[in-house]
């Protein structure tokens, strides 16, 4: 059986609630879903939990899945929602500590204090803006991919990134930093 046809068969079975088909799709996509979530939440343990949560949501929503469409894109959208819920529930405040993760090659022109203040300002962003800014500015993901994953238009992604940058600058200014 050709690969595409085989995949389509698995998707058909999954949409009818077949657990073996679900397992096959899980094993095929778990790595990609994990990497996508990790880009957003930036914590490997949380990303593992959220990968399971994502597939749990996928399993429950199997009847709503259209086998003619891409499973990977659908899974990524659900993963983004799960990650967004996580960011909303934790609202992690980054404490201003000396124990900061370092970039592979720290820029000598940027002081430790400035890095801390930037991190603090970033932690204050609303989750929706934070996701868009993380994926676009830090991870360098294409706007189209971000738009597909968040189920919004490219224009909306650009607007969120713009608003995130504006808010970051405002918070930094309040801390006496002129970015």
């Amino acid at each position, binding site marked *: 059986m050709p690969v595409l046809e085989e995949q389509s068969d698995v998707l058909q079975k999954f949409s009818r609630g077949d657990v073996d088909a679900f397992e096959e799709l*899980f094993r095929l996509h778990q790595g990609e879903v994990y990497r996508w979530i990790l880009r957003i939440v930036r914590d490997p343990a949380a990303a593992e939990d959220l990968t399971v949560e994502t597939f749990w949501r996928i399993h429950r929503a199997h009847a709503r899945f259209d086998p003619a469409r891409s499973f990977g894109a659908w899974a990524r959208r659900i993963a983004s929602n799960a990650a967004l819920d996580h960011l909303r529930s934790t609202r992690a405040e980054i404490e201003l500590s000396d124990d900061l993760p370092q970039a592979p090659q720290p820029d000598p022109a940027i002081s430790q204090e400035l890095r801390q203040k930037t991190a603090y300002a970033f932690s204050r962003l609303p989750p929706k803006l934070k996701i868009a800014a993380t994926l676009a500015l830090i991870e360098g993901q*294409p706007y189209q991919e971000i738009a597909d994953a968040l189920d919004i238009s490219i224009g909306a992604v650009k607007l969120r990134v713009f608003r995130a940058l504006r808010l970051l600058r405002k918070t930094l200014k309040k801390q006496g930093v002129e*970015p």
Partner: protein
Amino acid sequence: MTEPGHEPAQRMERLLKQYFPPTSTRPRAALERDLWPAMLRRMEQQSVAVPWFDWALLAALAVCLAVFPRAIPVLLYHL
């Protein structure tokens, strides 16, 4: 990936990357273990879980029977 804001946006992007390096450069960027066993545990937990509404209904019934004990034989008759 800098588009909005140009020069200041580029500077902000550089600042952010200093604190949050891209995940591809960090350890555990790829999944290191199979999560299927965790998924199975999750599915088993949920399949035996009783919805909260059922518990609320049971509690309401218990309260009713405690307040009106004479209703017990009537209830048993209807079961």
